[in-house]
């Protein structure tokens, strides 16, 4: 197999530019129209198994079975910021040995999106056209428009898809529809956009039933596993901010008229530090996990009632949280459920059924309460200190 070296293949990962695309690296985009791009320029990563000759020159063939290291990378991408560097080069790929009649599937260049697609195409012969979405998944990129009509039209032209295949259809994941106008793609390129199923695992069934998706295949789900898999990205950022809260707690309890005492800071602070962990766990993990079982539709309310229940149990049954001072009990019940509520509200970003108008409404009522509640907690802490020091 010959390796074609041509025009404009220099590609590199650029660091995320300030104010640039959210959550992902910016892959360099190639030059003018009608320039076929050769992903990786022949220096292929291990998941490329070879090249196939097409009417438009050699095309890299991607494996359809993921290796253990690749599956591990998926976990890393779920849990850490690694996902922001988890991309493939945009362009045309093959799975199996596709020909002029094979289907063309459109994907984003977030490697997770691409990997899930290619492993769902196991045993099939197909083309995959990877759009440059800045390393972001299909759904999020569609919301931003980077997975969109313009990029799709540009790629269909630049990869010369019309001379690659005889048919005139491309299969776009349904979750890409917020960014793609099928009518405009048809007008500009002559290609019909067929919307594939929401989940790549339904692709085989979709193709077998003559490119029709059952209503079930068209619905976005949000089952307990879907939710749990997203919680690390809620817990992680919250955990990073926790040290600040712990410092404040230690200062409040350590502060004496004579100076700051570490022993007092610790003895008084420990229940509150534990409480902070509890609030975090309740808001960023329990609330997402139990979402459908918690009363109310509002995420803020769900987070609050769940956490309130947790803390009411704790102050009544866990000796560590049975305070002598009513002030301390009050601080705990005012501040921590609100903190959980705030964290649960953050989960609207990951959930698959919240809408922007609703989130705005929640924040309109929620933000004043969060700020007000924090001020009340600070005042209560002040009152507690005044009482403790015996100033009054």
């Amino acid at each position: 197999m010959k390796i074609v070296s041509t025009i404009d293949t220099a590609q590199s990962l650029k660091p995320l530019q300030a104010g640039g695309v959210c959550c992902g690296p910016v892959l360099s985009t190639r030059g003018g129209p009608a320039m076929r791009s050769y992903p990786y320029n022949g220096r292929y990563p291990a998941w490329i198994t070879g090249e196939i000759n097409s009417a438009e020159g050699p095309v890299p063939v991607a494996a359809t079975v993921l290796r253990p290291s690749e599956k591990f990378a998926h976990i890393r991408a779920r849990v850490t910021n690694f996902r922001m560097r988890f991309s493939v080069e945009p362009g045309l790929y093959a799975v199996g040995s596709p020909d002029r009649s094979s289907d063309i599937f459109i994907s984003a260049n977030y490697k997770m999106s691409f990997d899930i697609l290619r492993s769902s195409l196991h045993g099939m012969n197909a083309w995959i056209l990877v759009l440059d979405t800045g390393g972001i998944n299909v759904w999020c990129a569609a919301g931003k428009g980077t997975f969109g009509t313009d990029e799709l039209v540009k790629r269909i032209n630049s990869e010369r898809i019309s001379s690659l295949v005889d048919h005139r259809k491309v299969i776009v994941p349904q979750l890409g529809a917020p960014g793609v106008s099928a009518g405009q793609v048809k007008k500009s390129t002559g290609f019909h956009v067929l919307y594939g199923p929401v989940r790549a695992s339904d692709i085989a069934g979709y193709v077998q039933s003559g490119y029709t998706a059952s209503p079930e295949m068209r619905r976005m789900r949000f089952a307990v596993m879907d939710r749990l898999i997203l919680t690390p990205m809620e817990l992680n950022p919250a955990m990073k901010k926790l040290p600040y809260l712990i410092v404040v707690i230690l200062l409040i309890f350590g502060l004496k008229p004579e100076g700051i005492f570490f022993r007092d800071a610790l003895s008084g602070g420990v229940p509150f530090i534990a409480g902070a962990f509890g609030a975090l766990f309740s808001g960023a993990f329990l609330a997402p996990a139990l979402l459908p079982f918690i009363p109310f539709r509002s995420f803020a309310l769900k987070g609050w009632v769940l956490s309130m229940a947790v803390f009411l149990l704790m102050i009544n049954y866990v000796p560590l949280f049975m305070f002598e001072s009513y002030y301390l009990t009050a601080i705990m019940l005012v501040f921590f459920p609100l903190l959980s509520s705030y964290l649960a509200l953050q989960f609207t970003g990951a959930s698959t059924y919240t809408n922007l108008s609703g989130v705005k409404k929640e924040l309109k009522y929620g933000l004043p309460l969060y700020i007000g509640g924090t001020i009340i907690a600070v005042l209560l802490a002040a009152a507690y200190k005044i009482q403790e020091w015996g100033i009054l």
Partner: protein
Amino acid sequence: MKYLKETATLKYFPEKCTGCGRCGEVCPHNVFSMSRGKAVVAHRDRCMECGACAKNCDFGAISVDAGVGCAAAVINGILRGTEPSCDCGGSSGSACCC
């Protein structure tokens, strides 16, 4: 699972609808159903304002203020005085937008 009642900005203009069925195809929450050759908004409260239907209706029969329902993005927008912007770079981001 359903989100808040009657907040979605989805608007449907039946007089423009040709009954092509695209909206029902792209909607991830089965908001539309077809009845007598026209689309019907059957489950408004399920709408997540993704914009897929409006974007793919070639006849302008649907409009919606599309956006991502993400608290972090809205707060970002409030702080900067801009539209909600999902700038999840760095440590601030939740799973929002990725």
